[in-house]
């Protein structure tokens, strides 16, 4: 089989890239990561939004949030820190100003939500579910805002209560739980999400981090700490996806430092049913589409007709055995 990476559109016709998250069918496994793709509109100039597996929008709260003072972002080795502080337009304006635009495209819309109380999460999910969005992603892990999700994401009891309650109020949309990577055992938390009725888990959110400007002696972010994203965290994300894959049956949305198709395929092999592209959008606004095409090329090159064949296709046992002797 040729090693050249080339695309044959007619071959793609025969190729099945679709994956399912709960009852939601995606035309391909590549979606956007919340907070890195605005409300979709910002990137519509660079790519055809119809090509995406799904669009996950910036985290929405009941009331608009102002966000943190600047500087909000800084660069780190192979990554970046952000402390946006969950700035967002709030539920009302999202439904009025942002959702109608996204509805013009033949692409599922998943809304990332956050609140400080279970009640808040429930109200948000209810309203969004009734507004007809395709999916709701519970951000229980955003490390940026002190009163933010972190507690939900690291306390098992609260998390299970939260998901159970939200589940009851969500009728149509699929329910995703975006877990905090800031835990000792991700398998326990994935299991809680599954047992509490979540249709899928999203892994991973940013890892809390910090950087210091040694000339000014100040933190590089006004919020002092922020969330680390980008290639730097990829190995941690792949590991957590693989651990979760071995713990739960529900689909896993893998993310964390995916910059190209090779990275995305790593996640699929480790057990992710779909992947989300975050920081890569900042490096190239065309990243999502480039990655979709790269996955097609890989499947082509390997003579694989259905992307689902590689999900969880890690050759771990064999590798273990072969290398042991």
């Amino acid at each position, binding site marked *: 089989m040729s090693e050249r990476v080339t695309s044959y559109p007619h071959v793609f016709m025969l190729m099945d890239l679709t994956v399912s998250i709960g009852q939601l069918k995606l035309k391909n496994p590549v979606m956007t990561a919340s907070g*890195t793709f605005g409300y979709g509109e910002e990137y519509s100039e*660079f790519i055809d939004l119809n090509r995406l597996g799904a669009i996950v929008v*910036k985290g929405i709260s009941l009331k608009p949030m102002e966000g943190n*003072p*600047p500087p909000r972002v800084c660069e780190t080795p192979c990554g*970046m820190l952000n402390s946006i502080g969950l*700035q967002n337009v709030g539920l009302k304006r999202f439904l009025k100003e942002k959702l109608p635009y996204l509805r013009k495209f033949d692409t599922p819309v998943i809304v990332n939500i956050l609140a400080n109380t279970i009640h808040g999460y429930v109200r948000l999910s209810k309203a969004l579910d009734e507004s007809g969005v395709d999916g709701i992603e519970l951000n229980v892990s955003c490390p940026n805002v002190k009163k933010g999700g972190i507690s939900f994401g690291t306390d098992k009891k609260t998390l299970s209560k939260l998901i159970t309650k939200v589940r009851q109020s969500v009728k149509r949309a699929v329910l995703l739980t975006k877990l905090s990577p800031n835990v000792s055992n991700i398998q326990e938390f994935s299991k809680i999400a599954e047992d509490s009725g979540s249709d899928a888990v999203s892994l991973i959110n940013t890892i809390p981090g910090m950087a210091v400007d040694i000339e000014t002696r100040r933190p590089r972010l006004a919020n002092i700490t922020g969330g680390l994203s980008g290639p730097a965290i990829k190995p941690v994300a792949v590991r957590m996806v693989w651990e979760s894959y071995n713990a739960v049956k529900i689909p896993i949305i893998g993310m964390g430092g995916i910059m190209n198709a090779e990275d995305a395929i790593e996640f699929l092999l480790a057990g992710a049913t779909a992947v989300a592209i975050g*920081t890569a959008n*900042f490096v190239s606004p065309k990243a999502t589409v480039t990655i979709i095409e790269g996955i097609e090329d890989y499947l082509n090159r390997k003579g694989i007709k259905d992307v689902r064949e590689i999900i969880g296709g890690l050759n771990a046992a064999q590798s273990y055995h072969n290398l042991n002797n």
Partner: protein
Amino acid sequence: MSRYFTAEIINNLPLNSKNGLLTIKLLEQVPNPEPGQFYMLAVSNSHDPLLKRPFSFFRKTPEGIQFLYEVKGRGTLMMKGFRGGKIINVLGPLGKGYPLLEDKRTPLLIAGGIGIASIFPLIEAFSNKAYVFYGARDKAGLLMLDELKGSSDNLHICTDDGSMGKQGTVVDLLNDFLTHHSSLITRYSLYACGRKSMLEAVSRIALEKGIKGYVSAEENMACGVGACLGCAIKVKSKKLKVKSQKVKNLNSELRTHNSGLVYKMVCKEGPVFPIEEIVW
């Protein structure tokens, strides 16, 4: 015409130990830039450094687009190493440039240090209609002087160490000028780019004397297109107060706790802001 494109380095002329003039040839059809707009340039094709760097549109030449840059850290150091023939990814033109007021006002253009990069196209646009105030650390820090003299007869120069032009800052120059032309004050408009402290001082003067004007702000950036909300800057927004009743599309503006103050995104709603808007 996409604003994300590949470009070829035509040449990269060192101007002094810290500054250079980069010329890139656009390999695709792209929209024309306006004074005050900027581009995000990829400084490496490895993941370190990861993010593109923002640089103001400096000048358009037959060969392509030029950027005037100063070495600050790792990324710009790599930029200094760019050789002709290298292909890089570029995003732009981005943001809102300087509004060229069509009225009778006389523009006062104020550039501190590398701020000249963003002011330069304004000088060409206004030609001799404008007064130009340009300052730098020292003589070596004054860039593109011949071109500047070529495009303006009203060029006022200063350096911190007095090694060329008047000794002092552009703020001193501006104050002197205004005191000698106090009668015409309402007939002026200000355009400034430079260090935060300078912009703040210029803004104070403008507000005191009631001179209309604009400054180009800087913030760390990631996406450059208003998607990451990373480049926030705090501004007053009367506009918002009015609209906040019946909600209209306010881009990424948000009602805030201390109402009337909002964060705007430098990359999309800026980098140029009306002086009266910015909260220092």
